[in-house]
């Protein structure tokens, strides 16, 4: 049985202009021990997916359809109390800007202890032992547990947040941009820690980021989102042999250190308005390969086992791949 199933999830936000369809029919599955990378640009709905899974959507947002099942249990049907018990014990979060997620007036140890105490009765001595163990696990010195957050560097605070996510030994960790804003050396250390938890303890992980190289290096499965929808879904082939023009655009726009001088492309235009999204493919207005057919909803096509693409023109992917590397293809049309 999959650990987490997200099926046709729809999340809407009330805004002054009307209801914005922030997430519109997103489905994916996380098996035990698997790391799924969710990649997309700002506003594509990737953080909203995380919030919906954890049941922490802001008051203006609500789940309008679909289902989220954790170990077979539907989270939508749970009472707030049941959800609260489940959160952190089963699904824990390493939040975006985790740097500022610790309370400055409490020691790090007391904040970790609070998370434990909220869910299970444990004598103080054992609690302290558990915290020391977790500090070791994320590469912090256990003696520093009684420090205040300001005595920690950014990378140490981030590790403390990972330790905090681990206190109750959850089955799934949701890491939302866990290294954004950190220096590259620290980022590398943190990602190695996270990967270590995943490899050694078999933790399942939902890794959300805009950095495609981070996803490529750390995920078993990749979901590419755009404007609230999944564009492409699969294994490492998603970046190696992309089919969807949006994935192709992202791959050719991403400056990869491994390649020497290569012309980078820039996708023209801006994402659509989610209050009144276009009929059919969400990417059509920016897609250099769009045709009249793209005005109708694209089918989900399995191009290889486990590799699914939402595009009318998967049969032309080879030609797209060739042309997408050329910046001229993506030149903004003269208006």
């Amino acid at each position: 049985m999959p650990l987490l199933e997200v099926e046709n999830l729809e999340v809407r936000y009330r805004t002054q202009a009307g209801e914005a369809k922030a997430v519109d029919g997103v489905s994916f599955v996380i098996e035990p021990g698997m790391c799924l990378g969710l990649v997309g640009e700002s506003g594509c709905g990737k953080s909203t997916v995380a919030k919906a899974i954890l049941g922490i959507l802001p008051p203006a947002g609500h789940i309008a359809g679909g289902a989220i099942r954790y170990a077979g249990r539907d989270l939508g049907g749970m009472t707030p109390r049941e959800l609260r018990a489940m959160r952190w014990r089963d699904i824990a979060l390493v939040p975006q800007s985790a740097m500022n997620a610790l309370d400055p007036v409490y020691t790090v140890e007391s904040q970790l202890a609070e998370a434990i105490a909220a869910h299970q009765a444990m004598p103080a001595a054992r609690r302290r032992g558990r915290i020391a163990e977790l500090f070791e696990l994320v590469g912090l010195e256990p003696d520093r547990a009684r420090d205040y957050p300001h005595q920690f560097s950014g990378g140490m605070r981030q590790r403390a947040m990972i330790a905090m996510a681990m206190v109750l030994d959850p089955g799934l960790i949701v890491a939302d941009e866990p290294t954004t804003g950190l220096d590259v050396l620290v980022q590398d250390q943190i990602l190695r820690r996270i990967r270590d938890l995943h490899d050694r303890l078999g933790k399942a992980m939902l890794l959300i980021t805009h950095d495609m190289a981070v996803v490529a290096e750390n995920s078993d499965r990749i979901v590419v989102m755009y404007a609230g929808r999944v564009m492409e879904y699969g294994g490492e082939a998603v970046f190696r042999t992309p089919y969807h023009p949006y994935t192709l655009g992202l791959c050719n726009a991403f400056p990869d250190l491994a390649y020497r001088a290569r012309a980078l492309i820039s996708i023209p235009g801006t994402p659509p308005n989610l209050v009144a999204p276009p009929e059919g493919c969400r990417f059509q207005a920016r897609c250099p390969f769009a045709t009249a057919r793209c005005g109708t909803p694209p089918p989900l096509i399995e191009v290889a086992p486990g590799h699914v693409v939402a595009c009318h023109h998967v049969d032309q992917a080879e030609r797209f791949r060739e042309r997408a590397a050329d910046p001229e293809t993506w030149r903004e049309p003269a208006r």
Partner: protein
Amino acid sequence: MVGEPVIEARDLRKWYPVRGRGFASLLTRRKPEFLKAIDGITLSIRPGEVLGLAGESGSGKSTTGMTLLKLHQPTGGEVRFQGLGLLVNETNRTRLAFRRQAQIVFQNPYEALNPRYTVAQSVGEPLSIHFPHDRDRRREMLLRAMDRAGLRPSEDYLDRYPHQLSGGQLQRVAIARAISVEPRFLVADEPVSMLDVSIRAGILNLLCYFASELHMAILYISHDLSTMRHVCTRIAVMYLGRIIEQGAADTVLDAPLHPYTQALVGAVPVMAGGRTRAPSNLIGGPADAIHLPGGCRFHPRCPRAMDVCRERDPALDLVASDHEVACHLYDSLSMSAPVRGKQ
């Protein structure tokens, strides 16, 4: 690259007093302490050259940009602009002339523009300062800057306000504002780190175009080495206020010599790499910028530190053509005089 350097820094220093300046310290006679944000750097940028300044946060990259522009007063050393020293004989007129020639683009376009100004007002503001009496010329320069920054057709943008534009468009407006007065030197401080991947290349390509076609000298400050490969002709790597390696962009990225540069390059995730990158072997985190270690300031973190590193501060020496490194590992390769100066 041809031509004399547009901007040069020699032994530039910027120290910030952190303690020992107030009344209490007068009474206690505590020795003043300084944070050495820039501690003796020498660099030059020629027309058409894009120099990338890389390093971790706190290494002094942004301070270097601000000090080269004289937005910060240097504590010591010299900045020369087109061969002329900037510290001496400065009058309002020379300062204004320098401001016209040297401009900056900031990291966050959402904060860099006045929300109450239209695009035309923002881009036109520097022009009205530098060309107050020439309306036709101002208009012409404004439209040229908009066109060069890729805001085409300009009529679509002139009367719009920042809240009506996307992040990428805002950054183009900020760039149009900086280049409106046709500067010779441009500082771009993390110009794409706030922008989405899909539109970064557009901004980076603009910088390449300014250098190659308009012969600007550009200082590109970023912590992101992968974008540097794309824009920079040369790269300088900073560590705690010093340049520790400098050279042609591909040389520094493909064959870095300094252990710190090697660690930085090795820590960048790559899309095609799978999980094969070796972990960094650096020890601990950056040293305290106020209480710098003796000898090489990198030695406490260096996996290859030797005895000499604890004692002597390495100078930035030429070890191959257009490749300088400040590290004792390469002492024997040094192309400077056989008896090296004491530091």
